[in-house]
């Protein structure tokens, strides 16, 4: 990642961020995917994924983070996440009622089990993570406009 000395925080923070931000992202994805086996699930994992991007923004400044996920992309991804969740719920109609769990349930305690629950977790994780980052982007835009006055 580029290192603009004027933007963001000190060198120590930037170095540690380069090392840890990928790990935070992977940890968040782990919590989302194992939502039906261990505590966590969509919301908690989504917040951790969002925090990975916020960490990037705090350490390097707004421009580097906005280059990874721009404001338009964040808004679109959020809506796509919500629409995917709604369509997973509507898939239940093929089975008989709204929100019914229609995929194969599999054996308990395996990763690929419990029907549509992991799919719902992934959709919620995308929406919450990107949504949290979009909130921070919007707040930073307000501060930027104030600084330019």
């Amino acid at each position, binding site marked *: 990642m580029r290192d603009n000395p004027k933007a963001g925080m000190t060198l120590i923070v930037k170095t540690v961020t380069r090392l840890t931000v990928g790990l935070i992202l992977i940890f968040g994805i782990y919590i989302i995917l194992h939502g039906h086996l261990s505590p966590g699930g969509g919301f908690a994992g989504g917040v951790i994924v969002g925090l990975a991007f916020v960490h990037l923004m705090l350490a390097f400044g707004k421009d580097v983070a906005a280059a990874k996920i721009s404001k338009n992309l964040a808004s679109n991804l959020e809506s796509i996440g919500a629409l995917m969740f709604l369509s997973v719920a509507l898939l239940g109609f093929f089975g008989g009622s709204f929100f019914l769990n229609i995929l194969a349930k599999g054996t*308990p*305690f395996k990763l690929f089990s419990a029907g549509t629950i992991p799919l719902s977790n992934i959709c919620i994780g995308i929406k*919450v993570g990107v949504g*949290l980052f979009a909130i921070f982007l919007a*707040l930073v835009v307000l501060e930027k406009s104030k600084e330019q006055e």
Partner: protein
Amino acid sequence: MTLYILCLVLFCIGLYGVLRKRNLIKIIVGLGIIEYAMNLFFVLLGYRFHGRAPIAAQDQNILNMVDPLPQALVLTSIVIGLGVTALVISIAIRIYEKYGTFDITKIKRLRG
């Protein structure tokens, strides 16, 4: 029992913050304290004596679990609190741009 009373005391502290503080940000912090007290109270309601965490593991035989329903509901409530806090903070930032102050005794253009 004392845990429930302490949660309600935390709620009252947050309510004091919302009612009596003059700075907008302190009001938002008070609102946050109210929401945390609520969530904590609801989770504590699910406690059962000699219960353990309500997570099924593959090779253990579990006899007593605490109630898992409040934990799932509090997850939703935390996210609702997040949404409200984000909205109210962005409104507070915009108010500072328009009025130039965070003091609620000076933000009083609507009266009557």
